[in-house]
């Protein structure tokens, strides 16, 4: 998947959870400070991403996700790993 398509999808997930309009959400936006993402919403976002893309985000990687673009980067990396595994198999 192209990274900008992925970015749009992730922004849509974050918009659903945060209540902000997708147009208000920039890649640089900070989840906690700018988008008012609390503990429950942070869990909701990670669970929604794992469900949609059928991936598993490593627990230790989650605290590193603090902005929209970092969220996109983590998912992008996971999807590429999966692609590489599928190609090898």
């Amino acid at each position, binding site marked *: 998947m192209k990274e900008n398509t992925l970015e749009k999808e992730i922004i849509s997930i974050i918009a659903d959870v945060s209540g*902000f309009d997708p147009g208000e959400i920039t890649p640089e936006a900070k989840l*906690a400070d700018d988008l008012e993402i609390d*503990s*429950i919403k942070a*869990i909701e976002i*990670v*669970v929604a991403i794992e469900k949609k893309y059928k991936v598993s985000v490593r627990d230790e990687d989650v605290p590193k996700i*603090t902005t929209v673009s970092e969220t996109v980067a983590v998912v992008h990396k996971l999807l590429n790993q999966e692609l590489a595994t599928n190609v090898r198999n």
Partner: protein
Amino acid sequence: MSGTDRPSYDAVIIGSGISGLVCGSYLAKAGLKVLIAEQHHQPGGYCTSFVRRGITFDAAAHSFGGYRENGIIRKVFNDFRLNDNVAVTRYDPTDVVVSPDSEISLWSDLERTIADLGSSFPDEQDNFRKFASFLLKPDPQSFAGMRRWTFKDLLDHYFRNDKLKSMLSFPIFGNGALPPARMSAFIGAKIFTEFILDGGYYPEGGMQRLSNALAESFQHFGGELLLSCPVSKIIIKNGGAAGIVIGGKMPVSAGSVVSNCDARQTFLRMIGKKHLPLEFMNKLHRMQPSLSMFVLYLGLDQEFENTLHAGSNIWYLSHYDLEKMYRSAARRSPSLIDECMVRISPDRKSLLAFTNTSFRNRAFWSDSKSKFIDGFIARLSRIMPGISQHILYKDAATPSTMDRYTSNYRGAAYGWESTTAQLADPDFRRPSFIRHLYLTGHWSTQGLGIPGVAYLGYDTATSVLKRRKASLSQSSPE
């Protein structure tokens, strides 16, 4: 809305539990025209009181937390000037856990708790400090990283001693109805933070004072509160919530509908299957509700002497196997009342005690309520010898009572079970398949107790206002 004379609101809220009251207050303060419809004759849900023989009894909730400097309840008090009407006292220690071998007191002063811990668990003092400092430092992402952790995983991460872990888990079991190996780390951590580390607050005069003060503040900002008005239906138009029907006959239009009641009732009874996607219906039927509880109320004479701290929540466990306690709650009998919480009211005139139990059926409780009352008093006599000679009044709330007064499914005390598997589905808060519908309170996500549901009420109000602003700016012709 043209062509109808029905009353119309910007938002209607079904249920006046703490979450509904807080949500309504923020919406009314923001200038919205808001209606709250409540089935009971007084507001509060599980946060109510009643008077018998001149003695005030709290029905279920018996203290609250989240009142520290940046706590959610402090914010609500400040935003609505509740201190003008409610005097808050903090009782110390907030909680005491009594096991067969030792006793832990949890004080408002963390260092005092840690110092006390030294007498029984000297090797764990530093660990407790680290645990508390993690809990009190809000970092939302760290809980997302623990979304698969149980509370047991979290305790294992910080502590070594299994007896201590069970003792620290027991108030969490009582306030969340799950043993540590089943409870999500997030909700266990939240209960420990908001009930224990920052708990033990009490509105002087009884818990009803808190609900009443919120209701008055809601009305002060122009909100309308209808009591003794059960809602029979949520009106759905063009895929969106458009209002409610009160008492089967009075339709009310609304821009947004917020349900502060049981999720099953909201979706299955008030909305109806035909508006629900099959996948969601299946999920709803798979979801497990939390256990209910049996609450004993005793009025005590003034000759009764005991050494229990008034206003503290005192937890008794006679063994350390919380998994066993969870299983025994499902087959609770009058002779099987063991682990429990006891609280002597600040005026020492009454006592509230409870133990977790499953619902079974209404007939079971109408047949055995009085036997359970006697069984519970026998249990308390082992803690406070002679108490049975000092009882002026006795009554109890069974799971069936909880169900009747609050319509919580099967008298569930804490909404859905707070397992990791039931952790986070936004469709229970803001269903994607019905626009303008919101759920708030302990059935909408993981968040329980007065601080938890107050936070959800605040957050739901914020969501309603954000979406309203977005739709107003889209529909604006300019």
